């Protein structure tokens, strides 16, 4: 009897916390959702007549081709890295995740700077060889160029998810296929692709969501998408209603993608974190094949990381004296502080909600886990403004309460970092939640149930049984979120408190003022910090394997 009472109490705590969290995430979303159904104004007619078709078309073309290209590159890399041994493999294994450390908008500015008339390539050709080439060979500010930028800086999502799946869970399939005498390519198409479908689709949908949310790259390259349209109608025309209608259109595209992902995934789920399942043993490749494989991997690594990195280093030294100031210490501190705080809170929340939905099961649980993804589908700027509105409402409530008690009201919420971190939670919970959920799926409910059967309460079970097994998943979730927040722009730009610039906002300010060379120092710092994170993450995962 007592046990039942306890059980109720425990369940309630997990349930209440989860419910509160979900509510906080839902509120801004609802605020947007409700506006979508407002009466269209004459401006909306104008947008429909002249713009909407192009916006939707461009957006769809962009996500389709980026999704395909990132999947092809990410999957092929994951395959060769998982199953073959070749020169530099140990470095490339984690080096190929590094492009995630470069914010796509910085990558876009860097490539344009490199390829432009005054860039390193054309300058060298002109000054050393006296060669003048037609500009069309260097034009990256096109639809193809935009797809290229997104693909090279986002493919690691597909690569890392697929790679961890292949190296952890495909050993027996591959060995059997080899015993039955399959050729390498045959095995790839007939075995590897079908079994890793879920992982590839999961990675690709992350890529697509990032593309839908981007504003920096498409604005600079002059590609009109739904996201540029939202900014244009809202901030340019001052027409909030139409902007929300466009945001609604964007959200419906995201919903379709999420449903498609579910269908494409089938019943299979992927896993991110390490497991105790027998990992795959890579086979050595010899001779020409080894060099071909190496050239492919290293080529991608160069284009997606090494070349922009070297270019930024070069610019950094060129402008270093002009730019360097004690302020950068503060910028680094601010960036690390806010990313660490937000990432910790996100992982904590993800644990609470995921644990609750796992033990609860049923419709409510499914709904909760879907809601966590919502924030990922709304442009950052829209979330930011919704958060401001929400917090001001809370402020007003506090004001009236304190007024009735004759206290001096404190507007503690309005410009505090609390707003910024809340916005990060809404925006990035999906990333952390996916990792944590995958971890829970991997350990399953057996151990938890055993512990419960022995009379240990839920919370104690969570700390003694579940948590130790979840280390890898928690850590990978944390790193993913940390790296993303470090380079996040729209939210940070709108919600920053007074005197609180970050590396990302600093880099953006220079780039936006068309001073790309000056933006290099802040960009480099972002890349170095993220790079260090990715490296340590990789080392810890390797340790877990051993």
């Amino acid at each position, binding site marked *: 009897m007592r046990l039942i009472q306890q059980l109720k109490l425990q369940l309630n*705590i997990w349930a209440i916390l989860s419910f509160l969290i979900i509510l906080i995430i839902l509120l801004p979303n609802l605020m947007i959702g409700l506006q979508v159904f407002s009466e269209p104004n004459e401006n909306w007619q*104008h947008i429909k007549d*002249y713009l909407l078709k192009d916006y939707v078309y461009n957006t769809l073309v962009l996500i389709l081709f980026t999704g395909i290209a990132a999947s092809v590159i990410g999957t092929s890399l994951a395959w060769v890295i998982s199953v073959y041994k070749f020169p530099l493999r140990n470095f490339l294994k984690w080096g190929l995740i590094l492009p995630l450390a470069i914010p796509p908008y910085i990558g876009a500015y860097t490539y*344009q700077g490199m390829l*432009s008339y*005054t860039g390193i390539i054309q*300058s060298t050709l002109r000054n050393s060889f006296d060669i003048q080439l037609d*500009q069309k060979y260097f034009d990256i*500010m096109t639809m193809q160029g935009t797809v290229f930028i997104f693909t090279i800086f986002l493919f690691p999502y597909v690569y890392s998810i697929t790679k961890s799946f292949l190296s952890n869970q495909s050993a027996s399939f591959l060995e059997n296929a080899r015993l039955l005498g399959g050729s390498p390519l045959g095995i790839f198409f007939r075995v590897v692709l079908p079994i890793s479908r879920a992982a590839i689709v999961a990675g690709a949908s992350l890529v697509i969501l990032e593309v839908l949310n981007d504003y920096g790259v498409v*604005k*600079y*390259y*002059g590609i009109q998408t739904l996201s*540029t349209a939202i*900014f*244009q109608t*809202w*901030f*340019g*025309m*001052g027409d909030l209603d139409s902007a929300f209608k466009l945001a609604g259109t964007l959200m419906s595209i995201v919903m379709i993608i999420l449903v498609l992902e579910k269908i494409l995934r089938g019943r299979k789920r992927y896993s991110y974190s390490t497991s105790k399942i027998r990992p795959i043993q890579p086979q050595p490749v010899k001779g020409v094949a080894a060099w071909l494989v190496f050239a492919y991997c290293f080529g991608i690594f160069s284009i997606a990381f090494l070349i922009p990195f070297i270019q930024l280093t070069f610019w950094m030294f*060129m*402008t270093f004296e*002009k730019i360097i100031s004690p302020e950068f210490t503060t910028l680094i501190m601010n960036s690390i*502080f806010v990313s660490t*705080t937000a990432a910790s*809170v996100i992982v*904590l929340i993800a644990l609470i909600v995921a644990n609750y939905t796992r033990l609860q099961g049923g419709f409510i649980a499914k709904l909760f886990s879907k809601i966590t993804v919502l924030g990922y589908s709304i442009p950052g*700027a829209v979330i*930011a*403004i919704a958060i*401001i*509105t929400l917090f*001001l409402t809370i402020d007003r409530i506090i004001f009236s309460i304190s007024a009735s008690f004759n206290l001096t009201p404190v*507007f*503690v919420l*309005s*410009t*505090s*970092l*609390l707003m910024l971190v809340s916005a990060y939670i809404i925006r990035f919970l999906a990333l952390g939640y996916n990792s944590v959920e995958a971890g829970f799926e991997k350990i399953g409910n057996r151990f938890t149930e055993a512990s419960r059967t022995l009379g240990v309460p839920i*919370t*104690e079970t969570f*700390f*003694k049984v579940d948590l130790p097994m979840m280390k890898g998943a928690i850590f990978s979730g944390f790193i993913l979120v940390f790296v993303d927040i470090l380079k996040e722009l*729209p939210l940070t*730009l*709108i*919600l*920053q*408190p*007074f*005197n*609180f610039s970050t590396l990302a*906002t600093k880099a953006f300010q220079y780039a*936006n*003022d*068309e*001073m790309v*060379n000056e933006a290099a120092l802040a960009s480099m710092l972002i890349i170095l910090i993220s790079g260090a994170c990715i490296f340590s993450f990789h080392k810890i995962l390797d340790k877990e394997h051993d």
Partner: protein
Amino acid sequence: MKKQFLFLGAIFLVALLVLAGCSGTEGVQTTESSSQANKSTSNNEQAEDKGVVNLYTSRHYDTDAELYKIFTEQTGIKVNVVQGKGDELMERLDREGANTEADVFMTADAGNLYRLKERGLLQAVESKTLAENIPEQLRDVDNQWFGLTKRARVIAYAKDRVSPSELSTYENLTDPKWKGRILVRSSSNIYNQSLLASFIELNGEEKAKEWAKGIVANMARNPKGGDTDQIKALVAGEGDIAIVNTYYYARLLNSSNPEDVKIAEKVGVFFPNQQTNGTHINISGVGVTRYAKNKENAVKFIEFLSSVQAQGQFAEGNNEYPVNPAVPPSDLLKSWGDFKAQDINLTILGVNNAQAIKIFNEVGWK
């Protein structure tokens, strides 16, 4: 069992406290920077603490920060800054309403300043100093905003392919002889919107629309990139003339990249409409927010920025023209000579902005 449960609760609380404490860290940071400011003032006479002025700005030049420091040293008023994009900060200010902490809003383009005023986010400031320092053209008719720097939107041309004698007016750019030769950025950019807004005022809506249509017909390529990219494309031979703001060209000339300097030298600037209604100019400017809690300090701050002492450095931070007639522009700008500017009050640029955007969409200027 209870213990762990408490532990979990504690973690959650700690996380919340850390967050709440963040507002505290702001305090820490301000003390840091104010202690720096104090250090610098200890060399001069110790300025006493005279409160703060809170600034939202879309200008992010390093020279601006130096000026804020000088202001603090002279008056003891600390300057707190949020730097972002003008239109987004405007939205934030609007949402914050009476609760806002911002006292001063600084942004580029009269179109943006007008929008602030229209949304009721600014208040009128009666200041003799500002009236003396800033010409009437460059102020709001109700004294709600004030221009601080001036820039012109001019025609840049490739010296080896175009002679200045072929150039005359903005209107002339729609002539078929320029087909496939004009470079200009996207219409989503406010500089182009304000340019068209000025034509709506000077030539009427019909003519303005014809002009936009004519430019689209003569474009060398689809609009993309910023003004600097147009100048680079010009030298690269993608087009022969480009419509750009003066300071981008000046910045290339002063660049730390020798390649940039080399191309800037191959480009000339031409101030159009000198024989007719003048070259299009615009400003970056400021206003005091409607709910400013430190209005007195805000006015002092703006007066300081318009003063002879600050104007030179403030304008030069972005290679712009000072608005204060008593302050000469930098040597480089002086070398381009004086020019005749459009004779309209810049408020008009804001009034016609929405119309300009619609025209751009209708004629297909991307």
